[in-house]
């Protein structure tokens, strides 16, 4: 059980990073971005390209992949989403479903459908207080915590971060105050996609890479974001932890194959009893 909780925390860190990015997009752009999971997969596969195919060091591969994913997100926004932003929000949703499918199958086209890993061979786990944890998982936990703190500092302390929160509060007033809203939109994408890429890479490090990995993550990250009140980046972290822990702990009672469904069931239950999310936010 303690072991499951530990795995839950690791997985929760990954979900949280995805959910934070998603929450920023929902709050600032009012956009439920259904391609967010596939952006995670893109980051993971770009890392594979740099690390395994080109043989670059891991840290450099990760950095390049995060940057390129952010660039890809901004380009996708400029080409596809921006022209549609003035039409109905639902059209944007369909467009993002389209982008999700295209991304996933581009990944499958270039890298094939078979699972892949960054590193072959078995890692010898550390044993701490009777709990097994692999060195990679330690890295994932550390990275997740560092990133969450970095995002927090960015949003609270920097001028751009404050402007992003101002945009989330009131887009019109931000424009009236002279904040360059288009530039902030770009920032939102950069931040959201970079976090997604990081989450995808961590997921790839923890398990393996599959083209559908992002799509399968979409449900947990949305569930986490909704649990956190869709709009509150810090609620997204709590939501991510709850989802991850329930998914891991559910394996004690039900078939492991149903793990992904646990996130969904939790989400539906929550929508029934408390649609505004567990942690405030706007309904």
């Amino acid at each position, binding site marked *: 059980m303690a072991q499951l909780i530990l795995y839950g925390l690791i997985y929760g860190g990954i979900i949280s990073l995805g959910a934070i990015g998603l929450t920023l997009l929902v709050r600032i752009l009012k956009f439920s971005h259904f391609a967010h999971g596939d952006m995670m997969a893109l980051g993971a596969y770009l890392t594979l390209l740099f690390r395994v195919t080109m043989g670059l060091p891991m840290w450099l591969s990760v950095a390049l992949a995060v940057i390129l994913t952010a660039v890809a997100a901004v380009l996708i926004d400029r080409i596809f989403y921006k022209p549609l932003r003035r039409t109905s929000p639902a059209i944007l949703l369909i467009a993002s479903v389209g982008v999700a499918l295209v991304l996933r199958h581009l990944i499958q086209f270039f890298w094939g459908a078979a699972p892949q890993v960054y590193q072959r061979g078995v890692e010898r786990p550390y044993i701490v207080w009777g709990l097994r944890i692999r060195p990679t998982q330690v890295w994932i936990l550390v990275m997740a915590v560092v990133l969450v703190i970095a995002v927090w500092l960015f949003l609270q302390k920097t001028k751009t971060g404050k402007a992003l929160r101002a945009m989330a509060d009131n887009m*019109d*007033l931000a424009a*009236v*105050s*002279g*904040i360059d809203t288009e530039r902030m939109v770009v920032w939102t994408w950069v931040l959201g996609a970079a976090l997604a890429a990081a989450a995808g890479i961590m997921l790839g490090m923890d398990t393996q890479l599959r083209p559908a990995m992002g799509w399968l993550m979409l449900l947990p990250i949305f569930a986490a974001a909704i649990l956190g009140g869709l709009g509150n980046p810090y609620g997204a972290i709590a939501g991510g932890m709850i989802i991850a822990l329930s998914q891991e702990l559910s394996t004690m009672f039900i078939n492991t194959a149903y793990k992904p469904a646990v996130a969904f069931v939790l989400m539906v239950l929550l929508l029934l009893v408390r649609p505004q999310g567990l942690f405030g936010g706007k309904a």
Partner: protein
Amino acid sequence: MALLEVSGLRAGYAEVDILHGVNLAVNQDEIVCVVGPNGAGKSTLMKSIFGLVRVRDGRIVFQGEDITGLGPSQIVRRGMCYVPQNNNVFPSLTVEENLEMGAFIRQGDFRRKMEEMFELFPILKERRRQKAGTMSGGQQQMVAMARALMLDPKLILLDEPTAGLSPKFAELVLEKVTEINRMGVSVLMIEQNARAGLAISHRGYVLTMGRNRLDDTGQALLANEEVGRLFLGG
């Protein structure tokens, strides 16, 4: 030459014109108040001056430059600021952060300007770390005005600054408007309480059905029989 000169302004939403050729001027160091019944087009006038509503015809000249058709972000940079009637603060940001956002495009340090604002609105200094959304309506109005003043504008547009405030707070806000004006900022405001608004204004305009009805000094309008009958309930 007037600081702001609006001539023959036609504007509106979708296919409907709200303003049918409005003329208006604000001179240096003036407080100008626009009064009129509901639906006269006062808010639309403000919004079209600030580039939030598309101007169909007419000209808006600010500091000698034609700003017709410019967007809010360009107008802000030319020294005009706007305080909307509703939703005029960032609720989840602290008072300090709200002011910082007001100074977003300001180059260099904004701390000194912020201190100036705290002198003007001492209550904001006490509550500098409070989230704006948790403050009272009157306090939010002060945050909104302070936010707009962070850029040292030449002209500030106030859309019904006392709407929804208690008489005590409304009086305080109008006092602040006079104070702001003494600091060298010209003011163009809409005031639903026409008597109080005109009382502190150098000049006033009466708008009805999207057209100029009357304009004169504030005192003259207050004494005007027609205005009295229309808006002052006397």
